[in-house]
């Protein structure tokens, strides 16, 4: 049986810097095993949020729990994280830098070669960090995050400042890690990146959550219809028979029906009623990825 406790849950998380309200009451829920994108333009509060979740900043209000527990050093040792930029001692080699991380996390030195291998840095294990390229530094940070074989990885703009090849390498790495069943929280301002690697997304702008859910539902290029009924299971059972049905995703009580062609809400309503289900909600969502992102971030 899978553990139903979400990897991360926040409620009403707030942080201000003087007059600037960076994060305004954020409610997040990161399901286990998801690749969760935190999507928003620069300055939207992504890094501030992650800093609070990782003990760097104290929230002004609200709560958060990793694995159902309040934040603490012991809880953070179960998370592998890279915030903003790779932070290492420039004069130490990759291996020696990872030794420091091993001791903090209580991990055997034997893991060092494994993670260096995983990020293709083993041949440079004994080179000083300051001799690394931006991409290599980024990969070393991912290696360090992987040391304790954590249940969840937190990566903040992991492809920032990389050349196209570096971006491809890091993205492949993330997809590979996700395939091993780890949960990944990925902050990014790049829509395309989130769409390519994430299963879930939360869209943030100016510290406010604009939308949250499966990527297919939020950043869809198909028209979608949001449906709710008193018995969602029964609703889910009849929908595949709907003529324009092109896919169905479920987010708690809400069903998202992708439709081919132009949406016909009246027809759908009639179809449901004829099948013995009275809808309690019916909302048409539309359009392409780019458009929905721009709309989500633009209308507020």
């Amino acid at each position, binding site marked *: 049986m899978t553990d139903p406790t979400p990897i991360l849950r926040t409620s009403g998380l707030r942080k201000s810097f003087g007059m600037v309200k960076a994060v305004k009451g954020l409610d997040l829920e990161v399901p286990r095993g998801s690749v969760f994108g935190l999507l928003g333009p620069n300055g939207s509060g992504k890094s501030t949020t992650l800093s609070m979740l*990782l*003990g*760097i*900043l104290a929230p002004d209000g609200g709560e958060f729990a990793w694995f159902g527990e309040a934040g*603490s*050093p*012991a809880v*953070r*040792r179960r*998370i592998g*994280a890279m*915030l903003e*930029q790779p*932070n*290492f*001692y*420039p*004069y*130490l080699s990759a291996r*020696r830098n990872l*030794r*420091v*991380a091993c*001791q*903090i*996390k209580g991990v055997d030195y034997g893991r060092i070669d494994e993670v260096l291998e995983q990020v293709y840095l083993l041949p440079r294990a004994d080179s000083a960090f300051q001799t690394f390229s931006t991409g290599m530094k980024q990969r070393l940070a991912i290696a*360090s995050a992987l040391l304790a074989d954590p249940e969840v990885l937190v990566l903040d703009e992991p492809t920032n400042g990389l050349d196209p090849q570096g971006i491809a390498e890091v993205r492949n790495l993330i997809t590979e890690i996700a395939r091993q069943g780890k949960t990944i929280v990925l902050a990014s301002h790049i829509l395309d990146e989130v769409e390519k690697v994430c299963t879930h997304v939360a869209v943030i702008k100016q510290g406010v959550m604009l939308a949250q859910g499966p990527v297919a539902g939020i950043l869809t290029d198909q028209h979608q219809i949001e449906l709710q009924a008193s018995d969602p299971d029964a609703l889910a059972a009849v929908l595949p028979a709907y003529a324009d049905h092109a896919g169905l995703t479920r987010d708690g009580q809400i069903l998202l029906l992708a439709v081919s062609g132009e949406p016909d809400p009246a027809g759908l309503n009639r179809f449901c009623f004829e099948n013995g289900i009275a809808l309690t909600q019916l909302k048409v969502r539309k359009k392409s990825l780019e458009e929905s992102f721009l709309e989500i971030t633009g209308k507020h």
Partner: protein
Amino acid sequence: MLRLLRIEWNKIAPYRAFRILILLYGISFLALPWSAERIPFLRNIQQIFEFPAIWFFYYFSGMFLSFALAIIVITITCNEYSYRTFRQHVIDGLGRNDLFAAKLTLMGIGALAITALFTINGLIAGSVNAFELDRSQMFVRAGFIPGFFLHLMGAMSLAFFLANLLRRTGLAIFAFLLWVFPLELILKGILEGLVKDGGVVSSRLPVWVIYNTNINFEGSEDPFHLLTQGFIPTGLGAENMLLKTAWVLIFSGLSWWMIQRRDL
């Protein structure tokens, strides 16, 4: 605690600036009580390298070298801020208390090791230098041994405080030198000259307390002059030892507070 020390050692042992500074410090520190024959103006006051005066002389000259330790403490602490590794340590799962405890333990162990060297080297040099070894005199002024430990802790905790406050190596070293040399003396002058009973405060200022030799430096009463007169300071006195301890606690406490409260 051992884990924290091991982490610290992994960070600093391969650091070249640390190795060079500690090596230079070690050589100079060990050479101090053996330097009599080679320093012209000291040659004539041979007894300062014999028991019991050697403890005072080693304490007094050792204080000048503790600048090197202050620079080491400032460098390794400010590095943590500029490399953003304090921040990364918290992300990786150290508590802020651990960040503080690791550095304080490192300073404590360093001060203990140097004090041990102080004792052993002092005993050997004192015995070798003695014209005629009188065992009863060996530990007569040994109160300078714990006094030296407290001096080292004082100088390093002041350096640690400034490093956490200013976070930039150059700036913190400059502030340290400024405070130790002119700044506190100016403050002392103002307190004593302009404030009624200012002396009560001025004699308890940190640098005065940490670098105290229990000698009146004013006029001609410099320590070498006193020694040539056959006067050997008896020790630091309980009040100075308590005040040194108090400043160690104050500077450490302020550093702890800054690490707890400020963004890393």
